[in-house]
């Protein structure tokens, strides 16, 4: 059973460019959350998708947007890249059952903005 997968592993972009990161959730999971982890920091919640809609959003600007597809996979898009967007981007998947949701994380995509 494949866990959460993310692509690409590494990415280098220039300021002002746009980037798309991809995530496939663990088999059977229907909810995808995205996190940004700056160097030396804990992950910060960006947003969460369920049933192809953004359900919750953290304190990130509109330059960060996403999408969830019918097969539950998800994309994170960042427009007008800034140097400060350089970070490890983590995708987590979970199953929307009643109670506490256990999230499974992918290995992340390392984005470097130059």
């Amino acid at each position, binding site marked *: 059973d494949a866990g*959460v997968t993310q692509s690409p592993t590494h990415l280098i972009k220039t300021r002002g460019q746009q980037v798309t990161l991809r995530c496939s959730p663990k088999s059977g999971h229907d909810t995808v959350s995205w996190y940004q982890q700056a160097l030396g*920091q804990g*992950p910060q919640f960006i947003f969460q998708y*369920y049933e192809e809609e953004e359900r*919750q959003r953290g304190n990130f600007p509109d330059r960060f947007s996403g999408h969830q597809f019918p097969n539950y996979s998800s994309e994170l898009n960042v427009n007008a890249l800034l140097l400060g967007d350089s970070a490890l981007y983590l995708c987590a998947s979970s199953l929307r059952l009643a109670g*506490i*949701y256990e*999230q499974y994380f992918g*290995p992340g995509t390392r984005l470097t903005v130059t």
Partner: protein
Amino acid sequence: AQSVTQLDSHVSVSEGTPVLLRCNYSSSYSPSLFWYVQHPNKGLQLLLKYTSAATLVKGINGFEAEFKKSETSFHLTKPSAHMSDAAEYFCVVSSARGANNLFFGTGTRLTVIP
């Protein structure tokens, strides 16, 4: 608002000695708390979770944590450190009862000395 404070950014122990990683939380309701571990170049892995059941929670790889409401603490312990325990550890609180986004602490780097 919910938040966690990890009291030590770096902990160093000798192999075979006990491990204590400290975490205090702040929450306006009865929280759900987690400990995650992150090994270099690997995804975040859930060690254990507290969900208002037993206050002493046992996790994987011999780790456990005790929820103390009076002290607003959720410290992570292990009786005997192993070299493979060297990693970054994150204390995490959920945003609301049953919510699916997580607030991470800034992390504690555990070093195990042979």
